[in-house]
């Protein structure tokens, strides 16, 4: 255990780093805008209309989305790893993404099967968000019902994986019968994207995310007890079923809404908790939870800045970057420390 003073220093450094990353992120993009103009634009004293659009309506919401996505997925990944005592678990083990993907696959590729009737009713700017929400919500509801029935956390893990297999199979059938454009649409959703939320949508995302974060804070004590194993936690007087429900609900809220709005963002949920544990050398969730929050937000902002390929006309899909940057970092940390903190 390190001393609390040192923790305070690391937290302070991370907070400063987050602020730096945030400003770096909004100052970089395809269009080069001088820093002075960015500050002017934010304070509303610039008269360049296209820069105003770029900064206020595109880069700022994108940066906030990145922070929400990184921190939310990091925290839900941490909770899943602790609940299932499995270092390979992530926010999507419950089948949430599979449910969301299935919803999106049905609206983007289902036209061939349902003859467009479905879309005539559905097509609007909310279609993809609604489809993803509905899909993940149905899977989540099933998982919640199951979690109150089964005794063993591992059973929930397996059930989540099974949902994944079922929806993957349905998606395959749908893809087989769909046109190139529909396939492309579905795949592009799978790349994830941070930059297509308006302020209004961002607000909805934030409200649900904040609810998920509050629930996760309420779960800190249960999470620390669960580290010792379920039986031991019971002997400490922990109500296992109630804690499990709390943790799963929080994770689902976070992972479900983030996936609905930004698509299935890869890797972050799995890797951030590991990076954090290695840096902080602790398994105490009182420390880990806020640390994962900061790390997640920082790394996602950095990934987005890279994905924008500053000053070039091209952008890369965010999912490619998260894994390309994230995986080597985790490998390097594990090799350097020679053992995994878990």
């Amino acid at each position, binding site marked *: 255990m390190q001393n609390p003073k040192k923790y305070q220093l690391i937290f302070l450094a991370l907070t400063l780093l987050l602020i730096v990353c945030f400003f770096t992120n909004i100052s970089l993009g395809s269009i080069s805008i001088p820093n002075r103009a960015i500050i002017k634009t934010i304070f509303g004293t610039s008269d360049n209309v296209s820069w105003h659009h770029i900064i206020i309506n*595109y880069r700022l919401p994108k940066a906030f989305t990145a922070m929400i996505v990184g921190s939310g997925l990091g925290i839900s990944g941490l909770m899943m790893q602790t609940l299932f005592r499995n270092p390979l678990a992530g926010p999507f083990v419950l089948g949430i993404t599979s449910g969301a993907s299935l919803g999106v696959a049905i*609206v983007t590729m289902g036209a061939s099967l349902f003859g467009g009737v479905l*879309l005539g009713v559905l*097509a609007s700017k909310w279609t993809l968000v609604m489809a993803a929400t509905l899909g993940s919500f149905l899977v989540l509801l099933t998982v919640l019902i199951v979690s109150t029935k089964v005794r063993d956390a591992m059973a929930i893990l397996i059930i989540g994986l099974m949902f994944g297999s079922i929806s993957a199979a349905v998606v395959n059938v749908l893809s087989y019968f769909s046109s190139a454009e529909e396939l492309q649409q579905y795949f592009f959703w799978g790349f994830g994207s941070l930059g*297509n939320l308006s302020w209004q949508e961002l607000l909805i995302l934030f409200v649900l995310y904040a609810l998920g974060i509050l629930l996760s804070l309420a779960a800190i004590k249960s999470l620390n007890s669960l580290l010792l194993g379920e039986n031991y936690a019971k002997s400490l007087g922990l109500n296992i079923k109630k804690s499990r429900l709390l943790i799963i609900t929080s994770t689902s809220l976070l992972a479900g809404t983030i996936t609905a709005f930004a698509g299935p963002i890869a890797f972050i949920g799995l890797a951030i908790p590991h990076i954090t544990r290695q840096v902080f050398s602790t398994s105490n969730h009182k420390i880990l939870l806020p640390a994962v929050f900061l790390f997640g937000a920082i790394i996602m902002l950095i990934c987005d800045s890279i994905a924008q390929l500053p000053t070039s006309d091209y952008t890369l899909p965010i999912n490619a970057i998260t894994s390309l940057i994230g995986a080597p970092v985790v490998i390097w940390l594990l090799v350097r420390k020679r053992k995994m903190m878990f």
Partner: protein
Amino acid sequence: MRFLILLSLSFLFFTSCKDEKKNHPSNPEIVSTAEKIKYAKGFSITNYKNYTEIIVTSPWPGSQDAFRYLLVDNDEDIPEFRESAVIIKRPITKIVAMSTTNIPALEYLNVEDRLVGFPSTKYISSEKTRALIDNGHIKDLNNDLEINMELFLELQPDLVIGFSVNGINKSLNQIEKFGYPVVLDGSWTEEHPLGRAEWIKFIGALFNKQDEANAIFESIETDYLEAKALALKIKEKPVVLSGSMFNDVWNVPGGKSYIAKYFEDANTNYIWKDNTSNGSIQLNFENVLNRARQAEFWIGAGSFQSLEDMKNSHKGYSYFDAFKNKNIYTYTKKIGPKGGLLYYELGPLRPDLILKDIINISHPHLLKDYENYFFKRLD
């Protein structure tokens, strides 16, 4: 249990965020003249005293929505009754287009220089526009599903001509959120070849060039109908096969598709003419071989460049008589500098050229001194 209720509530909150579209009938007391649209079923143009109204009823197959666009030349002309309509202020000096099929229409109307941005400019083959891309006048906006928003916002176009395969398009939604008007081009849903070409009137109206658009369309129509009349005088109808395989699925134009319409107008006997699909149908190899092995001509065999290529991709292709007699044609004769097929770009606007090519293939020597424009014979 309390959690479940909470969750259900938050979900309900979500599903209630759907925006309603209302369509009002136009006021009948206002004097108006409707533009005559002869073949296209997906749009209408009505000219009022101070503004023009375009209604697109078929932006994508099976669409239940109609989109109203009001074109005005002055702010004071914006009609009071404009609920759910998109207002487009003319003159339009800067546009972003999304489909290469818009490029020839812009060139024919001499407004290609208004194009300032396009996703994946590498697909554009038309010469005049290519030159504008090469000199940096037209910016590349990444691709149509993931538009580079920063570049787009810097361009500040007056209008975006987009399309949607099923009503869901992330990039277009985002563009609308920023307050840029988007019109949907539904030309690709038309079932008659001339119907697709007639959408030049839609583009013409946007640029206040309705007369030019009408004249261009009329000459294409005349050319098409003359060729068709000539072909119908021939007694024999050669049997025609079309399409090619992807993996082990053979994609064949359906009997009600616009490709089948060409085969009909060229006076040929298309094997699947009695099928009722207006898209493409997926068949297995045995089925196609059984029905089409003896077909005389094979027109539109994917984008193969030679008989050798075909045979290498699937040995089964060589079992067909059309293969043995070297009667296979693909639309790969004209390839743009960046590898785009001109057939896909110019074809929708020039059905007369496609029809004449097919007539020239299936009834050789009927058209005097005609050289195929899009189609080439594979060796």
